[in-house]
C-alpha cells in the first residue's frame, strides 16, 4: 500500500545515498523536504523534467538525497542558476530549495530580482532563523533579541519577513507555513508548483541544535509546539498592529495574483524577432 512516505522512499529518495540524512535529530529540514516531495508527487510531473536547485547550507544539502536532476550551487546563487536553466529550457520544472541565509542574506538580490522577473521557478525556503551549517550565526530572519554565536547579547537588527518581501518585489505567489503545519505546507507548495510565475513558500522550521539550544527553546518538540502557538492565519491579522504581529508567525497565502510569466513573454519576443 502506498502511504506518502512509501512513495517518497520508493520513488524519490536516492537509494545510493546514506540515510539517515545528515541533519541533526529533530531538525525540521526533513519535514519540509518531505512536504515538497509529496507536493511534487501530486503534480504528476516526471522526475526527468524536474530540476531541484540549492545553494549552500544545511537546507541546501537536500538535493543530494532526491532522485531528480539536482544542482547544489554556491552560497546564495541557487536562483541565478535556476533562472538560467528555466530560461534556456522552459519545459523543465525548476524548483529551488534554500535556507534563510542562502536566500535572503547573500542571495537576497537574486531573490528580489527573480520575483521581479516573475520567472516560473518555485522557491521553497527553510526559514530556521539561523545559519545552521556554519554553526549558528545570526541570519537576516533571526528575530530581534534572539541569540546567535555572532550576537551573544541578542540580535539588534530588524528581521526580514521573506514571503512579504518576495511579494513586494514582484513574486506572484508567496505563502508561509511551518513544519508543524506539514499538511498545509504541502498544500502551499503544491499551489506554488502549479502557479505560473515566480512562487515562493517560506517554511518556518526548527533548528534545535544551532538555534533552539542557544535560545533555551528546549528540544525539537518544544520548538515545534512553539510554531503551533505562534502561528496565526493571515485572515486573522487584518486588524492587528505591527507590534502585535511582530512575534507571531503569520501563515497563509500572502500573495497570489496572475501576471505574465517571463519565459512566456520571452517566447513572444522570439516569435516577433523571428518574423522581423
Amino acid at each position, binding site marked *: 500500500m502506498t*502511504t506518502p512516505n512509501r512513495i517518497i522512499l520508493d520513488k524519490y529518495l536516492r537509494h545510493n545515498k546514506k540515510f539517515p540524512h545528515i*541533519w541533526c535529530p*529533530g531538525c525540521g529540514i526533513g*519535514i519540509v523536504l518531505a512536504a515538497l516531495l509529496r507536493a511534487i508527487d501530486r503534480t504528476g510531473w516526471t522526475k526527468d523534467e524536474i530540476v531541484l536547485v540549492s545553494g549552500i547550507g544545511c537546507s541546501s544539502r537536500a538535493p543530494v538525497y532526491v532522485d531528480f536532476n539536482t544542482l547544489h550551487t554556491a552560497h546564495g546563487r541557487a536562483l541565478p542558476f535556476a533562472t538560467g536553466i528555466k530560461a534556456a529550457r522552459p519545459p523543465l520544472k525548476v524548483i529551488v530549495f534554500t535556507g534563510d541565509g542562502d536566500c535572503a542574506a547573500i542571495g537576497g538580490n537574486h531573490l528580489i530580482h527573480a520575483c521581479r522577473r516573475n520567472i516560473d521557478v518555485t522557491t521553497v525556503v527553510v526559514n530556521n532563523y539561523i545559519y545552521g551549517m556554519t554553526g549558528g550565526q545570526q541570519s537576516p530572519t533571526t528575530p530581534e533579541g534572539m541569540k546567535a554565536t555572532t550576537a551573544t547579547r541578542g540580535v539588534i537588527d530588524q528581521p526580514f519577513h521573506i514571503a512579504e518581501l518576495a511579494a513586494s518585489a514582484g513574486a506572484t505567489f508567496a505563502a508561509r507555513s511551518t513544519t508543524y503545519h*506539514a499538511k498545509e505546507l504541502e498544500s502551499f507548495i503544491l499551489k506554488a508548483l502549479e502557479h505560473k510565475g515566480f512562487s515562493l513558500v517560506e517554511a518556518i522550521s526548527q533548528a534545535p541544535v544551532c538555534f533552539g539550544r542557544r535560545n533555551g527553546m528546549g528540544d*525539537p518538540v518544544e520548538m*515545534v*509546539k512553539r510554531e503551533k502557538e505562534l502561528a496565526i492565519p493571515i485572515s486573522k491579522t487584518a486588524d492587528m498592529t505591527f507590534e502585535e504581529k511582530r512575534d507571531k508567525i503569520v501563515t497563509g497565502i500572502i500573495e497570489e495574483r496572475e501576471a505574465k510569466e517571463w519565459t512566456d513573454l520571452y517566447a513572444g519576443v522570439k516569435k516577433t524577432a523571428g518574423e522581423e
Partner: protein
Amino acid sequence: MAKADVKRKVVIYRDWCKQCGICSTFCPTGCIVKEEDGYPFPRYIEKCIGCRLCELRCPEFAITVEEEAKSK
C-alpha cells in the same frame, strides 16, 4: 471503506529514527509513545485514526502508516 473496516499499522524504521520525539508528542490519539530506549512505538495502535500526522511530521522519512481492509 468505513473507518471501522480498516486495520492500521504504524511502521517505524528504527535505523533512520533519531528519536526526536515529534511523532509521539503530536500524535493526536496517543497511539505512539516514546519508549524507555528513546524510540517511538505505536503501543496503542487500536487508537490510531490514520491521520498520518506522524508520518508527515517525521523529519527522517522513518514512519509509514499503513492501512488494510480488515478481514471480517
